[in-house]
């Protein structure tokens, strides 16, 4: 099997295998790029985004500064909530724990002074589903499947680089397309350089 043949097949099968990710990243970029439109559209529906599930007394010691992940894990355990999560400090008196999956999101708020905790569930929104998938990545979560998603994100990156390289090779093997190809490459690079100068 010749190199050029392998090159073409790599380009093709990577495209087919990663098509769902390719489509997801493409389509989900629309609500990212036009967020105001989607927010206004949802606001017009008049439906509340969050629904309160729990509002009760609760107490846990919060360190004055530093990492809060262990505290977040403890709060979730005490409330019987599982899933990927992130923790953030909302000032000295409030800690938020954000629990999310592709299909569902929950926000836990712990109010330090009041010793009170609330749990709210977010209504499913297709644009949030898409942007949530788009933004998902990294390896800080404990779940194996979540780490596997991070690996696939890396695979998408490798595929993008391979598409560029294998595409350039395929283009170079079409002598009749070289001039127009150089023009397209030069136009793209010039447009990029102009943006870096003018933005």
């Amino acid at each position: 099997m010749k190199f050029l043949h392998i090159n073409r097949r790599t380009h093709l099968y990577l495209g087919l295998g990663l098509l769902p990710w390719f489509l997801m990243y493409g389509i989900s970029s629309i609500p990212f790029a036009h967020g105001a439109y989607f927010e206004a559209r949802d606001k017009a529906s008049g439906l509340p985004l969050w629904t309160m599930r729990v509002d009760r007394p609760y107490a846990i010691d919060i360190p004055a500064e530093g990492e809060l992940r262990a505290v977040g894990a403890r709060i979730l355990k005490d409330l019987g909530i599982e899933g990927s999560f992130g923790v953030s400090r909302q000032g000295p008196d409030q800690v938020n724990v954000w629990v999310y999956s592709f299909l569902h999101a929950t926000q836990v708020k712990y109010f330090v002074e009041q010793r009170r905790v609330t749990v709210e569930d977010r209504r499913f929104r297709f644009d949030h589903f898409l942007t949530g998938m788009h933004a998902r990545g990294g390896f800080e979560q404990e779940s194996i499947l979540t780490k596997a998603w991070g690996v696939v994100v890396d695979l998408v990156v490798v595929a993008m680089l391979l598409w560029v390289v294998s595409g350039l090779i395929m283009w170079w093997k079409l002598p009749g397309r070289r001039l127009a190809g150089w023009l397209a490459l030069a136009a793209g690079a010039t447009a990029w350089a102009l943006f870096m100068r003018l933005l």
Partner: protein
Amino acid sequence: MLSSLLRQIHLYLALFMAPWVLMYAFSTLVMNHRDHFRQWYGGPPPAPVFERETPFEAALPEGANPREAGAQILAALDMEGAFNATQRRTDKAIVINRLDPITPRRITYVPGSGKLSIEKTPWDMRAYLERMHRRRGYQHDAPAEDAWAFSVDFFIAAVLLWAVSGLWMWWELRKTRRWGWVVLALGFALFGLFTVTI
């Protein structure tokens, strides 16, 4: 005819958009491995550092909001472009973040002080890539910024066109259909599994 047209669109669009493809690929790598890059660089991206102070005597309009004040200050500095501006509660200072892609700057003006303090963010490749990845939208009053937002929309259209034209070209290669179906099905099955489990 259609086949030839789709092939050419697929090719030339990719050659033109190559800088965007490379930026989105490398920036995704940076964001997917934030902790690794932090260790590799020895810390998070650098914070802005003091660059210079410059006199600023112009009076801001009565009741000007931070955005209006920011626009006037940036015009005086010849630094027009995308920015955001806030007013600090403690001393009422106007803090402007000029969102330059290469060298972002922070300009602080304390009313009555007669001067502007300018800080610049030192170059950091991962920060640059992430800034470009997140740059989008038509919310800034700057033609270049609208043009960039259009390029992002154009990239989205290109992604969808690559998918459609790629499927078309695959279907024309009869020999690859069977393995193509297998790979396509595996991809969708894995994607479906992730969607319902994580």
